[in-house]
């Protein structure tokens, strides 16, 4: 039996050798093409800030994927950070403030809620779970204008709370926490603790919280990345110097003569400076990504296998 099957496998191998070779070539070409597609823009944006406008346009014969000079990088940096009295730092500060406070609120609110949904019995549990799933599957852009209209009705538009509070609502985090607690902690353990007379608060503090580190990291990661990169919501809620960096970044386009030749203000942003601003705007997220490389590649995988 074993001999026959292995024999046929070998026959198949040799008979399809050319096909096999073609298949390998296909794999190599495909991976190479998509690696170039995903990586080249990133390499470009890392190099662009080291160039002058002339260099970036290749008018001096430089290749677009070459390094300019540190001197030029310093010059671009200087122009960018002095633009409108360092408005870029104001925007970055706003982003830190909005995403930071939202992150705290999200964690404080989400972890106990996920715990209750995963490990406690109560009447509205199923309803709450179904609502969470529904809202989680609705793209968050779909709720931006409705939230704006609501905030407008209560006169909060233009204040930081109009950004922070909607940022703090993160149903996906509740779902992740719910899954985590309901699979990571055994009901028997909890019941034993409860029988021993421990109050629900004690059980949560002594048993659930010490085990919760991975899910806190996961929820923190997703809420930070989503909120930091959110454009639409802050765009409608806060203006000008109250904008976070992503909204500010898009505003810089209007001061870039390459896109707006009619611009009459004297202080302008060149293309390499705009590239530098783009890079700065995502630097915190990029750093978080690089440091959580292992966790990302395996973490998301683990998340996927939970279904």
């Amino acid at each position, binding site marked *: 039996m074993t001999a026959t099957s292995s024999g046929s496998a070998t026959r198949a191998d040799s008979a399809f050798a050319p096909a096999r070779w073609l298949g390998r070539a296909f794999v190599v070409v495909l991976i190479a093409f998509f*690696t170039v597609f995903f990586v080249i823009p990133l390499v470009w944006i890392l190099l662009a800030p080291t160039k002058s406008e002339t260099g970036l346009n290749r008018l001096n014969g430089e290749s677009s994927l070459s390094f300019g000079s540190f001197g030029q990088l310093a010059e671009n940096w200087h122009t960018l950070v002095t633009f409108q009295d360092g408005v870029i730092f104001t925007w970055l500060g706003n982003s830190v403030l909005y995403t930071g406070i939202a992150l705290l609120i999200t964690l404080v609110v989400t972890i106990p809620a996920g715990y209750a949904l995963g490990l406690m019995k109560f009447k509205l549990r199923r309803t709450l779970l179904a*609502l969470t799933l529904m809202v989680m599957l609705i793209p968050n852009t779909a*709720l931006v204008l409705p939230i704006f209209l609501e905030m407008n009705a209560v006169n909060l538009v233009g204040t930081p709370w109009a950004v922070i509070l909607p940022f703090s609502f993160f149903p996906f985090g509740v779902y992740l926490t719910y899954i985590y607690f309901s699979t990571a902690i055994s009901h028997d353990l909890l019941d034993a603790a409860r029988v021993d007379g421990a109050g629900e608060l004690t059980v949560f503090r002594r048993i659930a919280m010490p085990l919760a580190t991975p899910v806190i990291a996961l929820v923190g990661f997703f809420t930070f990345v989503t909120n930091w990169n959110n454009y639409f919501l802050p765009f409608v809620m806060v203006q000008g110097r109250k904008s976070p960096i992503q909204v500010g970044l898009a505003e810089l386009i209007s001061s870039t003569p390459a896109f707006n030749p009619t611009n009459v203000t004297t202080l302008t942003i060149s293309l390499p400076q705009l590239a530098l601003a783009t890079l700065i705007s995502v630097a915190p997220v990029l750093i978080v990504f690089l440091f959580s490389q292992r966790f990302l590649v395996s973490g998301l995988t683990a998340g996927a296998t939970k279904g």
Partner: protein
Amino acid sequence: MAYAFSSGYIVLLLAFGIGPMVYAVYLAFTKAGEFVGFDNFANVVDDFRFKPAVIHVASFVAIWVVTLIVFVVLLALVVHSIRVRWLSSTSRFLFYIPGALAGAASVMLWLFMLNPSVSPVSSLLTQLGFENFVEVVAQPNLPVIFTVIAFWTGAGGWIIIMFGALNNIPNEVMEAARIDGAGAVKTALHIQIPLLKKWIAYMGIIALASGTQLFVEPKILSTATRGTVPKDYSLNQLAYVFAFGPQSDFNGSAAISVMLLVVAMGLAAFFVFRGGLFDRH
């Protein structure tokens, strides 16, 4: 006690999930506080900008969903077939990093990639017959351009999820296929893809729902081209223009939002109530 634990979340869910939807529905069916039936919807649909916006969004969504499904499944299968461990994990990571730029930053980056005078692939752009940036972002090209941007930022995460799902296929199943003499292509078509169906459907639905919400890409392109890409290109942009434009018509804006919400909720409900993926009870 359970209510104390979930109270904070319930408040936020009511204030920023359910509340806005209810309020948007209220605004969509009223005008100056009075019930007007479907008047606001009729006004919006009759608006000369509505139909083009629907067509723009629909053509983007069609190209986007198909491209995403075909290439994510293909790449996940290929990366999964790589035996060299570091090569497989490195390529997954490289595909995923652009996700860090999701949103305004990725659109900014692609403004440069699509500008023949600074793009690293300018020879490719000129070969396709484009002399300058405005020619590249001409309206007929936009659905493809938005697909490229969305794929660049979003595909990596999905590839990792599909990869995880492929890892979940029991070894014995794959082994049996190999013993039967099935090659990589046959195994993919007859075993792996059918077992991935649930995940592919999930990805398709999420992509469809988020695709209808198109906003940041055309918004930034519109600023960068001074209107060559219209500021009411997509439905969300049009809803924005209704609320913030000269009409300042919050009811019309709410009507568009409600239509988009109905589509998104329909797709979400399909998933929640059809069970399957999220059924854990």
